[in-house]
Every structure is written in C-alpha cells, then in structure tokens.
C-alpha cells in the first residue's frame, strides 16, 4: 500500500503541477474547465493505451520506441506552450484588462485553450502510463491486496492533487494585472525544462550524441531523483522549471535555446503595439 501511495503521489504531483500552471494561465477564460478535463481524460485514455502496448512501443525504432515517443510528445508540448506564450504576448494587455473588468471573462484566451489542453494531455499521459503499469503489476501479482492498492493509490492521488492545488491557490494570489506575466514566465521555464528532458530521451535513443558530458553536478546539494523529501522537492523543481542536478551540454543548450526562442517570438509579436503607429493600444 505504501509503495502504491508513494509512486502514485510522485506521478500525480508531476502532472498536477503542470495542470495547476495551465489553470492559472487560463484564469477567467470561458470553457477552460472543459478543456482541462478533456486533456486529463485524453491523457488517462492514452496512458492506458501506452501501458497496454508498452512492449510493442518499446520495440519500435530499433528498441528505442519509448524514448522517441516520449521525446516527440514532449516537443509537441513545447510547441504548444510556445504558441500559447506568443499568443499571450500579442494579446496580453487585452487579457489583463478583461480579467480585471466586471465578469472576469477573458474571451481572448479561448484561442489557445486547445493547445493547453494538449499540454495537459501529454503531462497526464507521460506520468499516467507508469502508474497504470505499476498498479497493474501489483494487481497481477497479488502481492498486495486489491483493497490496499486502491487505498494507497487513492491516498497518493489525493495527496498529489492537494500539493498541486496549493500551488494553484498560491498562483491565484498574484494580482490580476500581473497574473498573465507570471504564468507566461512559468510556462517559458516549463517549456525549456521539457525541451531539455526531450534531449535526454533523444540521447538515450542514440539519436543525439554530442555534448553528452555532465557540465556540473549539484546532486549533493539538491538531488532531482524524487527519493526522500529533498529529492522530491528537487523533482518538483525539475517538473516546474527544469531543474537538473547534473545537466549535460546538450540539455543546457536546449534549455537556453527554448527560453531565448520564446522570448524573441514574444517580443516580435508584441513590437507593433509599442510603436507610435499602434494607435489601437
């Protein structure tokens, strides 16, 4: 039961933090609950599919199917987050105005709901397939009684949801005028961390073999392995901002490149509004 609790907790937190950021970033946007729920539902269904065909999936690409699959969905999420931020940058002031106005209906935000729904789906899919395989394994072996497994899994789910909910509540304390700036910053770091993680999967698939040596190692200070409370904190930072205890060169390049790319694109689309010609602003 304890094993089920810990594993489910760890995976739920990882997906839950991402859902929390997406919820905060879509504050006031009509239809966001539906979009997030659809993302979670699709993610859970996808996780069951991936778990059921884990063997077949792994067999693709000369045995590197799992890595290529993970890298692909992570890069898809990076693209969606990038698009969201670029859209936000071009409509940020309008959205902040809508959020502060009576009714708090941020209609402008509806455009990127589908993209964020995909991000939620990817997060749930990645973490969920592990949970499904793990719980299925326990159930199949009968090592733990089914009741204990359900209890452990349920407690892990509740605890993970609670931590993610606390982070979401904390984000909502940000003043309305600043909220979209904060979530946009968080999404930039989230995307950068995902890009760095995708690099790891491509390296493990043997598709990307340069700058693979470790640049620094701070695992003595803050490990990111999810073991123990410090390790769990490190892992949460890993999910949120891409903290890696011992990054290699290619990871750092991907991380930095993603941040620069998003910032440059955001500035490009934002530029017209700040020139004298932008009378509508």
């Amino acid at each position: 039961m304890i094993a089920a609790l810990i594993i489910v907790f760890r995976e739920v937190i990882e997906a839950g933090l991402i859902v929390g950021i997406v919820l905060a970033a879509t504050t006031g946007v009509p239809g966001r609950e539906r979009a997030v729920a659809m993302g979670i539902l699709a993610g859970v269904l996808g996780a069951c599919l991936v778990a059921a065909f884990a063997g077949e999936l792994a067999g693709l690409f000369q045995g590197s199917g799992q890595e290529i699959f993970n890298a692909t969905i992570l890069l898809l999420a990076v693209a969606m987050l990038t698009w969201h931020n670029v859209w936000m940058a071009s409509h940020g002031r309008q959205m902040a105005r809508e959020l502060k106005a009576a009714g708090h209906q941020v209609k402008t935000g509806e455009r990127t709901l589908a993209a964020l729904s995909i991000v939620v789906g990817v997060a749930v899919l990645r973490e969920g397939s592990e949970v499904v395989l793990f719980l299925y394994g326990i159930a199949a072996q009968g090592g733990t009684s089914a009741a204990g497994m359900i209890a452990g899994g349920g407690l892990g789910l509740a605890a993970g949801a609670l931590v993610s909910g606390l982070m979401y509540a904390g984000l909502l304390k940000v003043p309305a005028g600043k909220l979209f700036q904060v979530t946009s910053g968080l999404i930039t770091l989230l995307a950068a961390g995902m890009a760095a993680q995708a690099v790891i999967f491509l390296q493990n698939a043997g598709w990307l073999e340069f700058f693979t040596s470790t640049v620094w190692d701070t695992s003595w200070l803050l490990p990111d392995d999810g073991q123990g409370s410090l390790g769990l904190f490190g892992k949460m930072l890993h999910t949120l901002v891409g903290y890696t205890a011992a990054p290699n060169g290619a990871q750092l390049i991907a991380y930095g490149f993603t941040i620069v790319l998003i910032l440059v694109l955001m500035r490009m689309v934002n530029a017209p509004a700040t020139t004298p010609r932008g009378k509508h602003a």
Partner: protein
Amino acid sequence: MKSVLLAILIAIFPISGFFISGALADEPVEVHLKNHKFSPSTIKVKANKPSMILLYNDDDGADEFDSSSLKIERVVPGHAKANIRIRALAPGKYPFMGEFHAATAQGVVIAE
C-alpha cells in the same frame, strides 16, 4: 496563424537537425530482473565510451529501470527485454533501481 507555424517549426527544427548515431564500445551486458532483483546487480563498463545493457525482465509485472545519475527512465513490461543505452560515463559509480520494486531491485553501474 503565421506566428503559430513559425513557433512550432522553430521549436522542433534545431533538435531534429543533428541526429548522429554512435558506435558502442563493447557487446551489450546482459542483465536479468527476476523476483525483483537484478543479476548481476553490479555492472562494469568502460569509462568514456557508450555501452548498452540488455535487460530481460523475467518477472510477470512491469518495472521501470530508473537512474537519475544515468539519466535513464525505461519501462520494461513483464517477460520483455529492453536495450538500454548508456552514454559515455566519467569514471565512477552510477546507482540504478527498478522503481516499481525499489526495496529489492537495486544495482550499480561502475565505469572504469
């Protein structure tokens, strides 16, 4: 819409552009996972060269070969095998575990 396509293209392009495949130093090391224990649980590889572990999961349930120091997370279904690539390692010890049964499934890669 243009900015959307641009964003997606630019996000994916640089990473897809540099695929190079590398050669392995030696034959893969065969490792079996049975009753949630690795055997051998100590795996020696040559330092500074990529290597490969051929992991046979002889148990009924899946497990996840997990190592933060090796940067590997790989789910292996029951009665399946997985070829796990290990990047070129600096000399040292790199612990790994079967995350689903971490109490017993522990091992270490030693690069020397």
